[in-house]
């Protein structure tokens, strides 16, 4: 049996809720519990120092805590080894790392890259730049009227033997949960290297990268209760070993000589310069927090809130919901209200301290496909209460009264 979340207790760990906000923008960035800030402050006040090459105890302590996060993350996503866990600033840097270090080596003129129309800009633009540089082609898998990927089209594209297939596990704009495992299997069978953008996956459900079978998996700490500045690239060891470094400088080297330089082994080969030490330690505390809740319970709670919100919003007149039914989506609901621009809605909601996102959600190709410039979006996490959804509905009605 899946545990259920005790949301009231959880909320006590988030001091920001004392301000009275209803925070419905967790797909953008999550709130952080005091355990996370406490871990960072403990580093700052007790053993603040640089990691590795430590010659004294506080630096040893910092190194141990800093490296401990790697094992926590490895465990969270069930990677085979901590050598496969690379610290980055977030999903965007992780994908750029792959585009530079793997992409520039392997993508050649005439090669095909398959993306989808659901992608976040961070999983589009690096590939556009790479493709332009190399003379490769990008094809985008379309969506159906429910905002789900056209798997028939995906299969067709695979027949053209793409070099790379990159897609998001969950759409940040529509909440669509893609059949990632199936898609990875098909793409691997077609001979492609596969990157999964897990920015909206890892924070919200249990992830097993080995079961998933992908080559790369990228996600951001700040969307999963961690601080800004720390994220993860998982890569299969074999691929990472064969890749050149992305950034270079201190700490990622074995020996620097005028005649040339040898690189450090994994994972440090990809971590040049002083890293975001406090932030990585904070991310470790965030993973602890989520692990204690249990990712199944996290998912179950989000599903419950999402169903509740979907129902509540469906009842609002003049409201259009985008994307799949609640059973097939994560805790994200995009919608629009007839006659009211999302920005105006967000401004009115904000007066009620309801934090709502309005815009293209860094998914402009998807917006173009949907024929809208922007939507309003509510997204949920472990601390979200039904009461906050009710407040959102109240704000919508208020907006309708003003714009009637």
């Amino acid at each position, binding site marked *: 049996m899946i545990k259920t979340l005790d949301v009231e207790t959880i909320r006590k760990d988030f001091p920001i809720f004392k301000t009275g906000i209803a925070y419905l923008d967790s797909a953008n960035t999550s709130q952080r519990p005091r355990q996370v800030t406490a871990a960072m402050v403990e580093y700052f006040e007790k053993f603040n120092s640089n990691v590795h090459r430590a010659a004294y105890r506080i630096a040893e302590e910092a190194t141990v805590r800093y490296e401990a996060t790697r094992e926590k993350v490895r465990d969270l996503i069930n990677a085979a080894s901590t050598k496969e866990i690379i610290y980055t600033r977030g999903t965007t840097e992780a994908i750029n790392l792959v585009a530079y270090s793997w992409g520039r080596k392997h993508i050649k003129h005439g090669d095909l890259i398959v993306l989808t129309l659901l992608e976040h800009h961070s999983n589009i633009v690096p590939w556009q730049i790479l493709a332009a540089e190399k003379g490769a082609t990008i094809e985008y898998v379309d969506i159906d009227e429910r905002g789900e990927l056209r798997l028939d089209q995906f299969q067709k594209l695979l027949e053209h033997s793409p070099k790379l297939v990159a897609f998001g596990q969950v759409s940040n704009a529509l909440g669509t949960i893609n059949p990632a495992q199936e898609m990875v299997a098909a793409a691997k069978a077609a001979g492609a290297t596969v990157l999964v953008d897990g920015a909206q996956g890892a924070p919200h459900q249990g992830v097993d990268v080995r079961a998933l079978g992908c080559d790369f998996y990228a996600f951001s700490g700040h969307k999963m209760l961690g601080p800004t500045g720390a994220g993860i690239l998982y890569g299969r060891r074999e691929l990472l070993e064969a890749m050149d470094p992305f950034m270079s400088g201190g700490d990622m080297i074995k020996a620097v000589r005028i005649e040339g330089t040898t690189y450090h082994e994994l994972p440090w080969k990809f971590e040049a310069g002083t890293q975001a030490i406090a932030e990585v330690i904070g991310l470790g505390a965030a993973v602890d927090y989520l692990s204690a809740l249990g990712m199944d319970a996290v998912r179950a709670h989000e599903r419950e809130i999402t169903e509740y919100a979907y129902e509540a919003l469906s009842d609002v007149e003049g409201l259009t919901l985008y994307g799949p039914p609640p059973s097939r989506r994560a805790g994200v609901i995009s919608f629009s209200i007839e006659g009211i621009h999302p920005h105006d809605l967000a*401004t009115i909601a904000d007066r009620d301290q309801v934090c709502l996102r309005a815009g*293209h959600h860094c998914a402009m190709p998807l917006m173009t496909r949907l024929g809208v*410039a922007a939507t309003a979006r509510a997204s949920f996490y472990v601390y979200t209460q039904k009461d906050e959804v009710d407040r959102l509905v109240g704000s919508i009605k208020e907006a309708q009264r*003003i*714009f009637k």
Partner: protein
Amino acid sequence: MSTRAGTAADDQFYREYILDHYKNPRNFGRLENPDISHEEDNPLCGDVIGMDFRVKDGVIEDIRFHGRGCAISQASASLLTERLKGLPLEDAKKIGKADVLGELGIDISPARIKCALLSLKVLKVGAYGLAGNDEDEE
């Protein structure tokens, strides 16, 4: 902290005339064979506003705007076209941010200021070719 207004009519931000310009935009549409035509988008939300100008002897004889956007950007565009119609281009050049914001007559938060100034940007870039990426106001 809520500043929710009792009725729409006395809303401090979405004032009646703003909503009126939003719902019934003045000079909305396109001109045939305009002398100047220019579009700008607000990269923050994807909203687009375009303007068509007919200019004769240095005077803006006719003007239309098109595009989509929030109440603030639409009302601001509508108000601006009213002011521009019949104005010498030389005078149009003198219109600045303060004028546009003053005309809107509401307190604009930093987040919405780009909405309010989008139409001015169309005017500046389109009608007298200022750099489109000059956003030093930020």
